[in-house]
């Protein structure tokens, strides 16, 4: 661990931001971790990674949750010949007690490198580096201590959610409970890959979308409300008194010109039917403005990163759904299962659900999952005239067919 040994990595111990190299060194009494440092130094020299896929590894009864990894220089670096990752399903919202964390550390000290990611990009606690031999025992200890694995492979991935009602006044839904509930309900899909490809669910309590669900979840659940923004005019006056530029920083930036500020009487008003609930004014004046009371969520589909058809942002499929703890989120779960069924039946290998919808058309999707088309699903209607008719919308004989004509949308007020 002398400066001599790893001169390149040594450079990354400098500077004010916490150093991952120092973190690795903290666990370098573990021989795996020490060798990982050496291997990384080599990568820094070579400007290339030194990992490869290998045989499939895992734990009994599960098809996911472990990423098998092997170095391509096993002779030189025998300690990281096998260096698998275990994905441990985080508690909703990444809340921990110190004891829960210590338990995790103890298990990982026993079975692995002592290195982690808190957390992975999907949300799991990542235990970074162990051998095939240790996988099952480590899992057993985790499970004994109340931890379960997250997802990997072509399955439902570990759902995640924002800080939610535990720590945020903007939470329109109980993101934590919903996340926990969905994870438990759909565990089988999480642990046993049976989908065409991965399927991610992320839940944000409001349109600020602090877990970036719209960008990186196939199913994005984003809290919203249906009634009116709550306004505390006294607090508005306080902002004004402090010289806060309500007109410039709040009103002028409203995307739908739905709020106004009367500087004379220091009154803030919202034209609620025209408010698109973007959160901006609430964000900027949290003491004065508050989300509505009749809350629920917007459901969106299709978000994913670049591969293959390029990145998609999720789009609206249900503008507003009440999410009732009381009925165990039945409506939502039902929808999710219908979506999976259709995707399962129609998706090609490695085709995300958004890509399948692109290929087959929203029309097919909506019909299959039983959702009514609504204008909120689109930025704007189609520009091309290439639309399809269902057989029952077509008039079969010259005599005409009043019903089909109506169904076909001869949308004319006479």
């Amino acid at each position, binding site marked *: 661990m002398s400066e001599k040994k790893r001169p390149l990595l040594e450079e990354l111990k400098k500077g004010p931001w916490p150093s991952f190299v120092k973190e690795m060194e903290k666990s370098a009494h573990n021989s795996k971790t020490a060798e990982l440092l050496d291997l990384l130094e080599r990568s820094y020299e070579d400007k290339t990674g030194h990992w490869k896929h290998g045989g499939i590894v895992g734990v009994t009864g599960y098809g996911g949750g472990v990423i098998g990894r092997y170095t391509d220089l096993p002779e030189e670096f025998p300690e990281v010949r096998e260096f698998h990752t275990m994905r441990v399903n985080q508690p909703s919202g990444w809340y921990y007690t110190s004891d829960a964390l210590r338990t995790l550390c103890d298990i990982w000290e026993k079975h692995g490198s002592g290195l982690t990611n808190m957390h992975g990009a999907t949300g799991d606690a990542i235990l970074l580096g162990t051998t095939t031999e240790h996988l099952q025992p480590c899992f057993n200890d985790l499970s004994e201590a109340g931890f379960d694995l997250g997802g990997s492979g072509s399955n439902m991935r570990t759902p995640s959610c924002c800080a939610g009602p535990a720590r945020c006044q903007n939470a329109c839904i109980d993101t934590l409970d919903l996340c926990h509930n969905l994870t438990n309900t759909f565990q089988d899909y999480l642990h046993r890959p049976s989908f065409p490809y991965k399927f991610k669910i992320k839940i944000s309590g409001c*349109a600020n*979308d602090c877990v970036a669900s*719209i960008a990186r979840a196939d199913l994005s659940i*984003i809290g*919203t409300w*249906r009634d009116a923004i709550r306004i505390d005019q006294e607090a508005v006056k306080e902002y004004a008194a402090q010289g806060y530029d309500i007109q410039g920083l709040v009103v002028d930036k409203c*995307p*739908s010109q739905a709020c106004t500020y009367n500087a004379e009487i220091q009154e803030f008003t919202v034209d609620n*039917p025209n*408010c*698109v*609930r973007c959160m901006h004014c609430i964000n900027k004046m949290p003491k004065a403005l508050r989300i509505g009371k009749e809350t629920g969520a*917007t459901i*969106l589909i*299709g978000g994913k990163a670049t591969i293959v058809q390029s990145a*998609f*942002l*999720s*789009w*609206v499929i249900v*503008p*507003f759904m009440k999410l009732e703890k009381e009925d165990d989120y039945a409506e939502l779960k039902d929808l999710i299962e219908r979506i999976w069924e259709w995707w399962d039946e129609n998706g090609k290998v490695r085709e995300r659900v958004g890509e399948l919808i*692109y290929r*087959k*058309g*929203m*029309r097919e999707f*909506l*019909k299959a999952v039983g959702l009514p*088309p*609504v*204008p*909120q*699903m*689109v*930025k*704007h*209607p*189609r*520009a*091309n*005239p*290439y*639309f*399809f*008719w269902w057989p029952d*919308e*077509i*008039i079969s*004989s*010259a005599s*005409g067919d009043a019903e089909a*004509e109506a169904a*076909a*949308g*001869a*949308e*004319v*007020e*006479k």
Partner: protein
Amino acid sequence: MCSVPVKKPKTDIGPPYYYDMLPEIIKENYGKWKYHEKIKPGVLKHVSENGAELYTVRAGSPRLLSIVTIREYADLADKYSGGHLRFTSRHNVEFLLSDPANIEPLIAELEAKGYPVGGTGDCLNNIIHTQGWIHCHSAATDASGPVKAVMDDLFEYFKKDDLPAKLKISMACCLNMCGAVHCSDIAFVGIHRTVPTIDDAGVAKGCEIPNVIASCPTGAIRPNPKAKSVMVNEEKCMYCGNCYTVCPSMKIMDPVNDGVAIFVGGKVANARSGPAFSRLAIPWVPNTPPRWDELVVAIRNLVEIWVKDARKGERYGEWIERIGWEKFFEMANLPFTDKHIDDFIFSVPTFRTTTNFKY
């Protein structure tokens, strides 16, 4: 009966030289116009740097003109505008006057002959349109008939210029969209709704099979080697008729199902917002000659909600942009259907990838 060429005809002489067509006042002030004024609906005044004044009187035209009418135009031009006139990019006729005293007499004569003066400023312009049953083999509806019916109904808006902004309506009789209607405030276009029926023998004899296959935007056509013809996948065909254009043996006409689709909110000018496509509002109204009553009612409704709700200066699409498409469908009292959601090549960017919407 017809003239016999006495000598080898001249070819490639090019169009007549526009300069020879211009009145003196234009020649003198060519490129020197300084500003224009709207005198009244149908009458413009252009003033040049050196003070010259040119008056334009615009009259509505059905575009399909008999030479009898054109000669009348010529006579009126001789009488009032020194023999000079032009046609506009929307097919109206414009008389170019240097003497303002001629304006009213010209208008009186035009109106008397049934050629209404108007269509300038913030008004309804003439409807761009195409051949229809008059001349095209590909038409899913007539062109001149529906246009006449709609213009009759909206006639008041051609005659006054106090609309929120210009109102440009266009029509095309099939998806080839010769009217280039795809960027109009309101566009209506003839559409089919059923798959082509294939005359195998005709295809085998008369069509280039690779071209036929390539013509299909959705890849619905595959070869039928046995019949030396092609087959159509009914699930993929969206009745565009493009195969029919390249191969007349793929008949696509269907009198009871053919009809008209209506799009709204497009524009061409770069003024303020850039050019924009028109978007589907009504997927289908039936073909009901002679006066396409359903179409006429539907378009009037679309016009009226805009006239009523738009702010001064808002083109149709700019108005919708402000209120939101969800409000548009509500105000227009139109159902939103799966047809409104794009499912062609560039569909994904049209999806609402934000929670910002109105209920």
